[in-house]
């Protein structure tokens, strides 16, 4: 399974610099970029009964396209496979807006109430906090950032998603991280599929950044 098989280099820091000289340099550079983004943008301070993690996804689509999907706070179903419906309370979409998300059947939740904490179109940062719902994910907070990169000589996008959340009663930190990571992996896999499909439909010049 593409999205869920372990050891696929999903977690930040999983990438080991190996191989030949050129490869090592490139891998090292990529790892350094990830580490810098992590340090600067994805700082969570998990408490004693919380767990935290970060995942990365490399997408063969230009950053503006990927960001247009990620930033759709009012339409997460455009790329998130587990969302069946989403309604933003009130009128304008702004920091502090709250959305009511309906989750598809078969999953251990039916609704999630989520607040927009940060939306930065210049730095490409989206931050969302869960403020209600029946998912058992209390004090869940996530940060998603997208960064331009080059993949096979074409414009690509590095997506980093990090989160922190309380560990629910009855579960371990490891289990909680595992579950949340599984959901995020599905979301990022779908984001890649949708973005790459849209990129093919509207070709972009390789020179465009």
């Amino acid at each position: 399974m593409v999205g869920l098989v372990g050891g696929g280099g999903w977690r930040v820091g999983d990438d080991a610099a190996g191989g030949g000289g050129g490869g090592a340099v490139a891998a090292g550079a990529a790892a350094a970029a990830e580490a810098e983004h992590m340090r600067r943008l994805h700082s969570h301070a998990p408490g004693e009964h919380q767990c935290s993690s970060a995942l990365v996804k490399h997408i063969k689509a230009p950053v503006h396209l990927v960001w247009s999907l990620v930033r759709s706070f009012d339409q997460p179903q455009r790329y998130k496979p587990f969302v069946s419906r989403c309604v933003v309370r009130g009128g304008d979409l702004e920091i502090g807006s709250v959305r009511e998300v309906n989750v598809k059947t078969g999953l251990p939740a039916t609704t999630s109430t989520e607040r927009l904490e940060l939306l930065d179109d210049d730095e490409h940062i989206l931050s969302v906090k869960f403020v209600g719902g029946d998912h058992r994910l209390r004090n869940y907070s996530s940060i998603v950032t997208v960064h331009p990169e080059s993949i096979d000589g074409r414009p690509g996008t590095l997506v980093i998603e990090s989160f922190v959340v309380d560990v629910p009663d009855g579960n371990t930190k490891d289990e909680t991280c595992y579950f949340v990571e599984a959901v995020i992996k599905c979301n990022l896999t779908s984001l890649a599929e949708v973005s790459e499909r849209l990129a093919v439909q509207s070709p972009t010049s390789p020179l465009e950044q």
Partner: protein
Amino acid sequence: MAEICCEVVAGSSSEGKGPECDTGSRAARRRRMEIRRLRVVAERGAEEETSGKRRRLDGGGGEASTDEEDREVERARYGFTSVCGRRRDMEDSVSACPGFLPGHHFFGVFDGHGCSHVATSCGQRMHEIVVDEAGAAAGSAGLDEEARWRGVMERSFARMDAEAVASSRGSVAPAPTCRCEMQLPKCDHVGSTAVVAVLGPRHVVVANCGDSRAVLCRGGAAIPLSCDHKPDRPDELERIHAAGGRVIFWDGARVFGMLAMSRAIGDSYLKPYVICDPEVRVMERKDGEDEFLILASDGLWDVVSNEVACNVVRACLRSSGRRERNRSSPTSNLSPRQSSSSGDEAPNDGAPSAAAGSESDEESAAEEDKACAEAAVLLTKLALARQTSDNVSVVVVNLRRRKL
């Protein structure tokens, strides 16, 4: 046994009363809505039964003339109902295909999750695929009947799963009723259970994938013909771990903390941990002992035990037998509360003519179909009264052979 049925119904009504008192008019309104949905779907089932009967009348002669192996072509006597219940969307599907193979009848219950289109596809295609595979297997003379049916079912489920994946790849437009967003090019995150029964002259074949269930009532005992595929079933847990997956208890045991069943049609994103291989059981029929077969989704089984379900159905079918003799009211054995809530009793016909044998025979057949439908409706009402939180789909098949 009628007393047990009445007590069960009365008990469930009392149980349902508590929350109703607490929440007042809202619960009452919801219950009325549920009953309305139930009535609508039950009527639709009746229509399908009528058309099914027409097909049987047309096909019966042909089957009799072409299939000399069977001493007689047994007519299917069945009823089903499928209701949304308290869930927001209807994602269940039911399939009943009498005479889909010479001397054989097909029944299936498919409980979808994530969206409805995989279950809908199963309802439309599974029986056709089984016909195809049974035809291909007819030539393998070396296999005994059990091995042959096992192979037919395993190949059919694999083909149905492949079709579910292919249809969500955009090669075929989604069904009009499907709610999937068009933006998503795949629907790998949609799936369905599948419990299927093929009723033949000598065997009942049951193939199951997921947590819907088939139960046979034989000699007064409830015999499960399928075993629910829950992720924490020891052998399923072992298989998932061996494949590199993980089961996490998150509102119940779930694969990756996500899906509450270990086998399903579709759900490509969870393969190879969630597989579509059916468990197949081939049960030899026992005349004089086999009473009926129940296929249902977990919307029923989560709140009604196998034994209670069998008691309810037996009381319904027995009541039908009694009605045949004395033409009493169709719902005479129901408690006053249930009688008043159904509200669609058919008026009694005039005295039947003793002279018309075939007419009486046909009337009796229709009566038996109606009894099965009533049994399915009653089970559904019981599940709703016990606050099931899911869609409910029930098929009841009468297995008693009629003496000619």
